[in-house]
């Protein structure tokens, strides 16, 4: 996928959809394309976090204490919480199928958050969405 194709893809990723075109282009240029085989670990719960992922193709299982709690699909991002927190990964991630993903490092995200009101709002929306999801899951336990 070339940079232009990445920009068009990022326009449909909720975290980056409202980012300005230069912001999307910057992410597209700096992101690294990476692939995983089914069952391969992207990161483990407790690992230090240095990047977030956007799935281009395939599915990724999100694991909490070894149990799958969520399934991420193409067009979704994950791993941003630990990146923002500068803390360890709060959950693990494992490829459920062949996965093609964009890897975006912490420094790129930090620079964009510092300069983009749209991304700050998107981050707030993403975090609130995660909180609602966790609360909904917890109520069913």
């Amino acid at each position: 996928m070339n940079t232009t194709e990445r920009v068009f893809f990022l326009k449909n990723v909720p975290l980056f959809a409202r980012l300005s075109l230069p912001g999307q282009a910057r992410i597209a240029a700096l992101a690294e394309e990476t692939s995983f085989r089914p069952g391969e670990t992207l990161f483990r719960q407790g690992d230090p976090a240095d990047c977030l992922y956007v799935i281009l193709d395939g599915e990724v299982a999100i694991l909490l204490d070894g149990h799958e709690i969520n399934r991420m699909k193409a067009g979704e991002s994950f791993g941003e919480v630990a990146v923002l927190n500068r803390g360890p990964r709060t959950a693990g991630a494992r490829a459920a199928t062949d996965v093609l993903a964009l890897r975006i490092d912490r420094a790129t995200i930090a620079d964009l958050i510092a300069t983009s009101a749209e991304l700050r709002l998107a981050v707030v929306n993403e975090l609130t969405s995660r909180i609602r999801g966790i609360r909904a899951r917890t109520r069913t336990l």
Partner: protein
Amino acid sequence: VEHIDPRRLHVATRLADRPLFDRLAIETLYAVVGAGEIRAICSGQVLCEQGASADACYLVLSGEVELAADGERRITRTAGQGFGELEVLTDELRPETARTIADTECFVLPREAIERLIAGDANVANAAVAYLLETLRTASEQESQRRKAAQEAVR
């Protein structure tokens, strides 16, 4: 030199003790207070109903507010305490009905004002992100504990 409104400054210093705002500088808090309003409310008035959309968060300046769920009192809020910040940010329904149980003065910050502040002020946005990250961490821990307890119960 801009005139400093002592009343507004007082509310700003109170706001500095609330988790959503406690990372903000006093000048930013002063601007936040300017986006809301101070309301005097008689005892016995309902401020918001359980199950309703969360359209504002509240900081009690004087008096007392009771928070009740399903008709049962859970807690009261007095001067310097607040409620509603999380529901406003997460767009969840009110978990409790809030009713004044004394003549009360509140600072009310509408959802639209918070959204405007987050969009327009990097400091407010960063404070909101930090607050939400902490909330997310707590919620994740609760989910993990509940999950473990449920697994233990099955065993």
